[in-house]
């Protein structure tokens, strides 16, 4: 997989380089440059053929659509990975905090209820299968 990606990357880079060279030729065109330009155009076509061939080898690569938004707005796509990781970490910590809070609340509630309704709470614990309130 990595080799096919590398190959695609190389082909794309070569393609971009060809376009850049055509831009230079065209920006101040000289009559003797026509043959070179024709060659370059043929190279562009062969480059496109190569990219088309490599398409099948990278079909199973999935890219999140949000990455494109980063690229389209001129931002580094590595920031997407960073932001994703940080978001996941923050969410994980928030959920962990909620779970801990509910756990503490449950323990506290059981303690308080037991002090007020001891018989009912004993029944309740018997049904639930936990004999004593978890701390």
């Amino acid at each position, binding site marked *: 997989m990595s080799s096919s990606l590398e190959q695609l990357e190389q082909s794309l880079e070569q393609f971009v380089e060809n376009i850049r060279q055509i831009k230079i030729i065209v*920006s101040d*065109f000289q009559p003797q440059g026509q043959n070179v330009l*024709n060659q370059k155009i043929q190279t562009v076509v062969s480059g496109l053929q190569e990219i088309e061939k490599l398409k099948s080898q990278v079909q199973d690569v999935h890219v999140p659509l949000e990455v*494109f938004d980063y690229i*389209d707005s001129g931002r*580094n796509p590595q920031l997407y990975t*960073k932001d994703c990781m940080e978001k996941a970490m923050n*969410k*994980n910590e928030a959920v962990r905090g909620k779970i801990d809070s509910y756990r503490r609340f449950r323990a506290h509630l059981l303690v308080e209820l037991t002090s007020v309704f001891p018989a009912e709470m004993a029944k309740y614990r018997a049904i639930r299968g936990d004999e004593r309130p978890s701390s």
Partner: protein
Amino acid sequence: MMADPFRISKVEQYSPKSSPRGSRSPVVPRQDSTGTLKATISLGKNPSIVHTGPFYLIKEAPGESELTGATNLMAHYGLEHSYNKSSGRKVKDTLSSFLPNLPGQIDSSGYQDNSSLRSVIDKPPIGGKELMMLNSMQLSGFRLHPGPLPEQYRVFNQVPQKKNKHKHKRHKYKPGEAVPHHMEVVTSQTDLALAAEKKHKKQKRHDDDKERRKRKKEKKKKKSSKHSPEHAAASGGGGSGGGGSGASSQNNSQISTQ
């Protein structure tokens, strides 16, 4: 005949009388799997409703899940290394820092010049046709006129000016090394600024020295005039001239050296 009992039982099931909560819609069936909603209703002279189940509001506990937010999911999936790598390293914000070899200005928004990747997804290009090399007839369509491009098409040649690029790279080039031309200009400008600053400081120091020396001179002058025998005579008859003061200072210096 067969439908009647079915209908009756259905009506009974959805009857508000049989619902434990009168306010709730009887149409929505609620199954009591726990048996905690059991109640005995006795009619007659003294009608009463007795809950036979242990608790009225008890519900089944939610199913225990092995993997919840209580665990460190980053560690669970073995992504700690990736997290540390991405969060610890300072990543430059611009796209050009990710693709430094790409020519042209790529940091501007792709929506401006309609070159966004999103537009490729929204409107996919026509494909499926085989790409063929161009023959000489087709290539003749690319025959160009000699000369530079018209003004309106030269926008792609413009290289964006990078702001403060060399701000922190003042000491990148050592004195002995060859300095690129554009850097030379910048360095020479910074050098000029530095030199001016230095000069200013030097001047200031020079002025300070001058003042200090002047003060010293005056002090010495006073001292010497106090100790010299002429002082008594001169004190009555005005100040001495410039040359005199110089002489006295000279004397003074001689005295101090002795």
